């Protein structure tokens, strides 16, 4: 157990899942910043991303890259649909935060059950993106899928940063996160920003789901644990800070990998959830402090 190669191996794999949690965590932040809503259906996007890609690939023989692209677009559209059907009506009625949470959680269940009915309860997996033997760094194997995850995460974060910094829509969303009323007075269509944030967040979740599926598996019920991991990442990084969320995700991934090595893989969710409770009780503002 104390074998350094083994520990290094575990940490490397933790880095991969950490990136995934980070992406999901950023998804939470995007919606939260635009609207103050915490979307408890975030996990549904992750599950749908992996599931749709798998279906397109296996059932319809679409090559991986187009399949992934189609899945991301479809899930983004579903994010907007969720916003239109569930979130917007509640938002217009000034629903309390609790009602909003309960409604999005119910939406999560609806998506989960619909998926179960549509494709059954069998766990599914995707082939690794490029089927080549792992790189050896000393005696530590680094799978090429991990490189895909790292590369794609870096790309997504760069794209997001550019979006928020240079595009009009991105700037408008940032204005919303600073002060929604002032943003509305400046002529920013706040509701459209809400819809956009759901689309963006759903696309992020789907991307995360597609990247992680080859190394794990996807099934109708993987969403909630992923959502909670993403939420933990967001809290650890200080809620509402996208970059913090990504770092929080990495930290969670490493902690979880350590827990798997020490206690066995069955307890990985318990480890993550316990980390959530520790942070909630001791340092709810996260390491960097919450954005607001």
């Amino acid at each position, binding site marked *: 157990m104390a074998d350094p190669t083994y520990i290094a191996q575990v940490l490397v794999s933790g880095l991969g899942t950490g990136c995934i949690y980070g992406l999901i965590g950023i998804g939470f932040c995007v919606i939260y910043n635009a609207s103050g809503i915490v979307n408890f259906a975030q996990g549904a996007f992750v599950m749908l991303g992996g599931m749709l890609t798998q279906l397109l690939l296996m059932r319809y023989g679409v090559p991986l890259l187009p399949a992934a692209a189609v899945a991301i677009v479809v899930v983004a559209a579903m994010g907007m649909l969720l916003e239109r059907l569930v979130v917007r009506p509640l938002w217009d009625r000034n629903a309390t935060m609790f009602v909003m949470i309960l409604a999005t959680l119910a939406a999560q269940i609806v998506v989960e059950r619909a998926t179960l009915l549509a494709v059954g309860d069998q766990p599914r997996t995707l082939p690794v993106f490029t089927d080549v033997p792992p790189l050896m760094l000393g005696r530590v194997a680094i799978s090429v899928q991990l490189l895909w995850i790292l590369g794609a995460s870096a790309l997504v974060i760069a794209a997001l940063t550019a979006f928020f910094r240079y595009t009009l829509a991105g700037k408008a969303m940032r204005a919303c996160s600073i002060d929604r009323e002032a943003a509305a007075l400046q002529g920013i269509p706040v509701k459209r920003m809400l819809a956009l944030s759901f689309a963006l967040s759903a696309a992020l979740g789907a991307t995360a789901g597609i990247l992680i599926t080859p190394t794990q598996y996807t099934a109708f019920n993987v969403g909630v644990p992923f959502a909670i991991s993403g939420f933990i990442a967001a809290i650890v990084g200080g809620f509402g800070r996208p970059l913090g969320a990504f770092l929080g995700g990495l930290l969670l991934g490493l902690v979880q990998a350590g827990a798997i090595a020490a206690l066995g893989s069955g307890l990985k969710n318990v480890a993550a*959830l316990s980390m959530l409770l520790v942070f909630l009780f001791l340092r709810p503002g996260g390491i960097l402090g919450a954005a607001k």
Partner: protein
Amino acid sequence: MKTLRSTTSPDWRSALRLLPWGLSALFVGYGFVAGGYPATVIGFALVYAVFVTGLNLFMGYTNQVSFGQNAFAAVGGYMSAVLTTTYQWPVVPAMGAGVAAAVLLALVIGYPTLRLKGHYLAMGTLAIGLITYEIAVEWQSVTQGYLGISGIPPLGVGSYEVTSDRGQLALLVAIVLASTFISARIRDSRMGRAFLALGASENGAMALGVDVARTKLLAFLVSAAFAALAGCLFVHVVGYVSPEVFGLHMVILGFTMLYVGGVGSVAGPLVGALIVSLMPEVFRGFKDYQDLAYGAALIVILIYAPRGLASLFDRAKARPRSADL
């Protein structure tokens, strides 16, 4: 708040107040007469009614959030199941131990958790429910994982076991009535007034001298006890327990029942549990779509009747509320 625009005459309104009870009596009565399968379905509904009564106390009265009530049902249920099967305990002390264990857990968890607010409280309680579920799956030496524990003895005292459908139903009716009575008594007690004050405004309650932290914890413990009792009843009524019983769908189902019956009312949990449980029986082929439909129904109710379906009855009372926001 008083409204002068009350169009309903007093006796009509009091009759309306009896409606949920009459409806419940009708359903339960049907279960008795029919026996067999209908009695089992009604029995399940009654078990859930106990669970929802606890949820109502914490959420309806105190206006707090817990998405982790399934944790306490699981602790109570599993404790009772393990004690009666592996350790051959009699049913009543085993159930007592199950409820006690859940309340103890609620005390340990509640103290740090209830200091949280908003999203943090919601996610924290959700995490507690999921941790419990995962432990039920993984701790195979005790819970036997997904396989579950079977051969759990039915409800009963000493050598007397309630095995007939109708006997079980009668016992459950008594327990539900007792729970509902306790819930009503709590609402009218000093403690209950503190709950309601807290629910209306935390700062207001504090200004009136309510110990907010203690009151929240107390409400949490009482609701955990109800959840645990429901968990215990479930395992003994069914005779079998597996982790799925206490999954996230239990939480959503509980909330759906509460919202159908009416949040914060005394009869709400019972009516809601009965109506929601009978849905799959009324509509054929509904079973597969059960959780899907409950989730969708809950969303629709949350949008169009945020205080529950029962609130639609007193529209006249609800109208002026928009003015004070």
